[in-house]
């Protein structure tokens, strides 16, 4: 019997543990149709129906098609983070999985890092699908390099989406987290003018929604007319994310 009861953990294995958690978090959600189908299919369906069919009937040409495409990418990339954190954290908080994982020597932060990576993976797939649909049947006329830039900027949108989701997941009861996440998701999309232009008060208060800032960033990256400075939008999104994460961490640290 040697006295090395617990061999030291090489850094490379710690890094591998983070990756393995991210891999299995993505894998299990891809294999969970209740999660993956709405997250992947809804943006495509909505975009095809509202963004392409109805807009095509209204007749607006290339500029409108590009506008709609950019608006729907905002919607698409918000989903994985919002639901991945919003529903799953609330449910897992209550079902003993978090307790089991806390008992295991899981690296600190790996639980949340895995969900963040999962949200990125899903967001990239959603972006790719939307782009394919946009180019093939959506009359999108943005050049390829611009599309890549939009995709890169939009994948940053995963971070505020995860922050909003984590906040919901930390505070909402497991039974109502899904409903709350849906209301917040659709509500923010409508109220920030993603789907159709707003007017009056609703237009004036758009800047309170993170989706508004994300969509202005998306427009700027696509070389379209945008409101305000991209740096300000970035700063607001970063600050909002930080506040929501801190509030969530406060709740989760109470081991609730």
């Amino acid at each position, binding site marked *: 019997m040697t006295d090395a009861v617990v*061999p030291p953990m090489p850094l490379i294995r710690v890094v591998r543990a983070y990756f393995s958690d991210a891999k299995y978090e993505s894998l299990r959600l891809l294999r969970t149709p209740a999660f993956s189908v709405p997250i992947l299919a809804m943006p495509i369906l909505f975009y095809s129906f509202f963004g392409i069919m109805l807009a095509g009937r209204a007749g607006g040409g290339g500029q409108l098609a590009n506008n709609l495409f950019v608006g729907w990418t905002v919607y698409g990339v918000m989903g994985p983070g919002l639901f991945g954190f919003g529903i799953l954290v609330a449910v897992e908080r209550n079902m*003993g999985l978090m307790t089991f994982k*806390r*008992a295991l*020597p899981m690296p600190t932060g790996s639980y949340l890092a895995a969900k963040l990576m999962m949200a990125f993976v899903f967001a990239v797939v959603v972006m790719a699908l939307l782009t394919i649909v946009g180019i093939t049947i959506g009359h999108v006329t943005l050049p390829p390099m611009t599309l890549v830039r939009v995709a890169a900027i939009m994948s940053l949108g995963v971070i505020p989406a995860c922050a909003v989701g984590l906040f919901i997941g930390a505070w909402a009861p497991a039974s109502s987290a899904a409903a709350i996440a849906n209301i917040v998701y659709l509500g923010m999309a409508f109220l920030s003018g993603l789907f159709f232009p707003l007017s009056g008060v609703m237009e004036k208060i758009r800047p309170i929604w993170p989706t508004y800032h994300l969509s202005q960033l998306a427009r700027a990256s696509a070389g379209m007319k945008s409101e305000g400075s991209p740096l300000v939008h970035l700063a607001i999104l970063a600050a909002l994310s930080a506040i929501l994460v801190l509030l969530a961490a406060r709740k989760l640290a109470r081991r609730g």
Partner: protein
Amino acid sequence: MADDGKWSGDVLARLSGAKKRYGDTVALDGLDLEVRRGELLAVLGPNGAGKTTAIGLLLGLQEPDAGDVELFGRSPHDLAARRGVGVMMQEVALPDALQVRDLVSMTSAYYPDPLSLEETLAQAGVEKLARRPYIKLSGGQKRQAQFALAICGRPQLIFLDEPTTGLDVTARETMWATLRRIVAGGASIVLTTHYIEEAEALADRVVVMAKGRGIAEGTVRDIRDLVVRKRIDCATVLDVAVIEAWPGIITTIREGIRVSITATDAEGVVRRLLDGDPALTDLEVRRAGLSEAFTELTQEAAE
């Protein structure tokens, strides 16, 4: 414990004077518990005795209201300490879209020197379940998969909270064989169970808990010896009321022609039985099993 992660003490985990209450319920009332190197420690006790809470404290899942908790000489919140630990909890919902082999790979990634996937599956006896999604497993198969997760990291200390609940006989034998092999290899196991025969079959040491305290501790034989009670069965025509009037009688139960007596003075009772009924047959005298010892000890603690 030195910073290189080595621990040479002979006590792998320790609770000293641990107290824990949930609202008005006292879960632990000053429990002292030691897990020594290379032993299989069975923690016995009725529901609500505090067994699961004790394990929760040792894993850092809950904080004691008073007292000390040590795991490999460190705080259980220390990741380095938990890297030496494997765990099978009573109620756990795993990501059920993942296959058993995924769960094993995911869990073993947390440990410095885990078993290979194949070794883990073989030791837990779940090779055939490797590609089955967790959600498709039966209750007993889920326990087997959870057992695989408890051993995959080659831990030096394994906590098993009621591990064989819901297992069929074959699966239970496989698990017992693996537990014996793990202990023979030098690791320690803490097992809570309400199957007395499990403790009798496996344990080097038994701790009996009741009402949040350890009320008895020792080998299986020690625990049985704590209780002088014996059981006497026979077929006799003697009246139960007559037997009950004798000294040293604790209970007397008649079922048809058979009478079951528990008594502290077995020899005296047998003498009186044979004197009172020369036609008495089927006489049998047994030392109380761990089960009876256990019932008596926990009842005494409750009084």
